């Protein structure tokens, strides 16, 4: 089973996200760059995703927002750097709730044996900004923290 691996190491302002998909690389690239496909998966289903601009080319800008059930909107925007290709792309990423805090995302797609691994390496301007992004930017699941601790402790039971 695939699972998403997220690493936010101490001492460096990075977030690394990695996940393998059972699909060829060109198709995964399409799912990341075709706005009609992107809105179908980016973000949890309880948010409506609205794409304002998605100009996939060197220097092209992008902007989208996630709208929750109460109508609150969370906007994000940035610019593509270098020509996006199925090898991957580089973009800036700015949460509109924290203007001026810009992350640099490098997305690398590698295909092996019909499976494609997507690795995103994000560099924040400071460790504090990185931590704020993790703590507040997508804090929806934070209330589940204790439930997840129980789950983790459940998983700690030794396997015979």
């Amino acid at each position, binding site marked *: 089973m*695939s*699972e*998403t691996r*997220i690493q*936010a*190491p*101490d*001492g460096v302002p990075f*977030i690394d*996200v990695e*996940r393998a*998909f*059972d*699909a060829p690389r060109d*198709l*995964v690239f*399409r*799912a990341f760059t075709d706005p*009609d*496909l992107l809105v*179908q*998966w*980016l*973000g*949890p*289903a309880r948010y409506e995703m609205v794409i304002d601009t998605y100009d996939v080319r060197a220097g092209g800008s992008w902007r989208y927002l996630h709208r929750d059930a109460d109508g609150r909107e969370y906007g994000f925007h940035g610019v593509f750097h270098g020509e996006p290709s199925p090898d991957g792309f580089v973009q800036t990423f700015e949460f509109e709730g924290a203007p001026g805090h810009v992350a640099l995302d490098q997305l690398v797609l590698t295909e092996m044996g019909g499976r494609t691994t997507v690795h995103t390496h994000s560099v924040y301007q400071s460790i504090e900004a990185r931590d704020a*992004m*993790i*703590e507040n*930017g*997508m*804090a*929806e*699941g*934070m209330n*589940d*923290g*204790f439930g*997840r*601790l129980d789950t*983790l*402790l459940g*998983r*700690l*039971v*030794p*396997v015979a």
Partner: protein
Amino acid sequence: MQPTNLDAVFGALADPTRRAILAHLTDGDRTVAQLAAPFTMSQPAISRHLKVLETAGLITRTRRATARLSHLEAAPLRDATEWLAGYQAWWDESHGRLEALLARLQADPMPPRSGGPTE
């Protein structure tokens, strides 16, 4: 309280023996001998694992008479899971949806636009 060193916590949790030791400690404090009992490992080997857990802040050790008791510290575990929980949940769900979308696209390379019932 010391801030949690997440690298140390995740490093300590990466080992199955150390996870098993933590699971035993959820039932209460234990001596090295008690912790070593379920394993084929020597007590010194278990002691080395306890040292790693202690450095990560996941356990504390106290001396009672001649025995050294290990005690589970829940706070670093809570920090480690809570800190990434929201972010992890966001990407888990997104990637789960992407996986399903990619499966649909491969089953039917030119699917109709997936509009909702209101479209």
